């Protein structure tokens, strides 16, 4: 498949505006600005594009919730990329920042926003600087600012750096953070489409989602819809990490089977070992085992088997991996990142971590697995935002497949592997 999102990955100098223009850059913006905003929204609906941040919500539909007559609206690009196992947006921002900016300009025009923010995690300083340079270049060339390409449309894009908080990937926490507050999620409804940044209608889209837009405008909705499965089409970036021969980013059609990603593109398991488990979409996604590797990597196929595509961050674990330790690392992460706003998540993830930690360190007691399961039941569906659910889904995924390893740890005070 011809690459759309990662065609410049690793290419020296690709991030400059001149390089981007030489590859036909900003032609899609020119074309879009000649269209009616409603027609662009329809085009994105027809393309079948679904949000690449993890939730898979149809992008065109999200845009259509924005009231047309509102005088002040915002676009926010979610570049928080905090889900462990995910490193795709960084690839786009470092090597093709103008692809993101062009996508943002198209989206802003479609929804009628004149100000847009890129919320980028604080650690990605290099990418933030790249974006800032690209923004300045885009202003100089007339792709941003007042009266863009003589069309009368104006847009300013600003970079807002986060500073270490996974929760800010949740869209309303992200908005709180831009407004200068602790990044804690807001109550929904009202949804950001009606009351978002500064209480104004706001669309929040992931980097990869926005980066799909120039190609959709250039080549048409039908072209995009023809790639991959009918209900979640398009190109998708899979980031493969862990025990594989060739970890890295792979842009493939949505729906590529997990087996093909792990064994063909990422070169299979390191040192000829056997695969034990794969997390398909960042640590929140319940892990899969050998028998599920035929699953197509798209939103619906993974949901059907009780997991999720999430961010497409694929973490591969070979036979030497202790699954109790894996669970411990994931629970430690969630308890650390719980924002503290609601009790089931704040207290629940802390206890999940404490119990898995004592099992991992040989201090588990009989009944601990059942205690974990009961905690999961009391967290899931009772938290303010999906963070607590993510912790539960991850742990349930490990327990479902590797319960005996937990029992072994409790009984023998050491790993089974």
């Amino acid at each position, binding site marked *: 498949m011809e690459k759309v999102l990662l065609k410049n990955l690793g290419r020296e100098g690709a991030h400059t505006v001149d390089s981007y223009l030489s590859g036909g850059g900003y032609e899609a913006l020119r074309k879009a600005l000649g269209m009616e905003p409603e027609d662009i929204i329809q085009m994105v609906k027809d393309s079948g594009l679904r949000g690449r941040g993890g939730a898979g919500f149809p992008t065109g539909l999200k845009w259509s919730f924005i009231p047309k007559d509102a005088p002040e609206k915002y676009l926010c690009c979610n570049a928080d*990329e*905090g*889900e*462990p*196992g*995910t*490193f795709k947006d*960084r690839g786009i921002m470092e090597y093709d920042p103008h692809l993101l900016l062009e996508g943002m300009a198209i989206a802003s025009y479609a929804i009628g926003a004149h100000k847009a923010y890129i919320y980028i*995690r*604080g*650690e*990605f*300083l*290099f990418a933030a600087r790249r974006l800032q340079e690209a923004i300045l270049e885009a202003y100089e060339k007339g792709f941003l600012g007042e009266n863009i390409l003589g069309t009368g449309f104006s847009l300013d894009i*600003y970079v*807002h*750096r*986060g*500073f*270490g*908080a*996974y929760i800010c990937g949740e869209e309303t926490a992200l908005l709180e*953070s*831009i*407004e*200068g*507050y*602790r*990044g804690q999620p807001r109550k929904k409804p009202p949804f950001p489409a009606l009351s978002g940044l*500064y209480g104004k209608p706001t669309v929040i889209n992931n980097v990869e989602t926005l980066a799909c837009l120039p190609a959709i405008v250039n080549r048409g909705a039908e072209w995009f819809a023809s790639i991959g499965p009918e209900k979640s089409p398009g190109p998708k970036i899979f*980031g*493969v*990490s*862990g*025990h594989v021969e060739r*970890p*890295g*980013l792979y842009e493939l059609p949505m729906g590529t089977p997990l087996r093909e990603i792990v064994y063909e593109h990422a070169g299979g398991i390191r040192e000829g070992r056997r695969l034990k488990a794969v*997390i398909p979409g960042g*640590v929140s996604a319940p892990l899969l085992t050998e028998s599920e590797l035929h699953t197509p990597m798209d939103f619906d196929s993974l949901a059907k088997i009780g997991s999720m595509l999430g961010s497409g*961050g694929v*973490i591969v*674990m070979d036979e030497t*991996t202790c699954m109790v*330790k*894996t669970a411990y*690392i*994931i629970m*430690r*992460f969630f308890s*650390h*990142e719980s*924002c503290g706003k609601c009790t089931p998540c704040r207290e629940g993830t802390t206890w999940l971590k404490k119990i898995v930690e004592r099992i991992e360190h040989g201090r588990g007691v009989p009944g601990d697995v059942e205690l974990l399961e009961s905690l999961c039941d009391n967290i899931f569906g009772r938290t303010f935002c999906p963070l607590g659910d993510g912790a539960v889904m991850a742990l349930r995924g490990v327990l479902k497949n590797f319960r005996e390893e937990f029992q072994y740890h409790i009984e023998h005070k050491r790993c089974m592997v």
Partner: protein
Amino acid sequence: MDEKTRREIEGKILPKYRTRRSACMASMQLVQRQKGYLTKEDMEEIARLLDMEPVEVEAVGKFYTMYNVERPVGRYHIQVCENLSCSLMGGEHILKHIERLLGIKTGQTTGDKRFTLSVVQCLGSCGTAPVIQVNDDYYENLTDKKVEEILERLK
């Protein structure tokens, strides 16, 4: 806070936003860049400048893990990722190796104030694990030897 910093906040940060409070994150980042951490006085000054209460600035500072609130760090702040992909690729070993080389434990600063060692959650560089961040820079695909070379250069 010196006059230059104040001017930068007024001239470059505040115009990006609709409210003064929105400049709080970036202002704290700017001040922290100058000396590596934030004092109570810094946060009080930022609060005055942005029409906030000092406790509101402090609440933001303590929520986001990259702000070193009243926590001086060494000239080089080494942050080792302890999340899953890095762990699978030997992240804990890298952490122990750095502890041995610097003669400090995680969370400590060397006596000469040159290095502070911390563990962090996912740095978003999982395909090139194990990864550490030293101040602004990422070091990826680490091995014992690479770590030794990096520390030698910074000593």
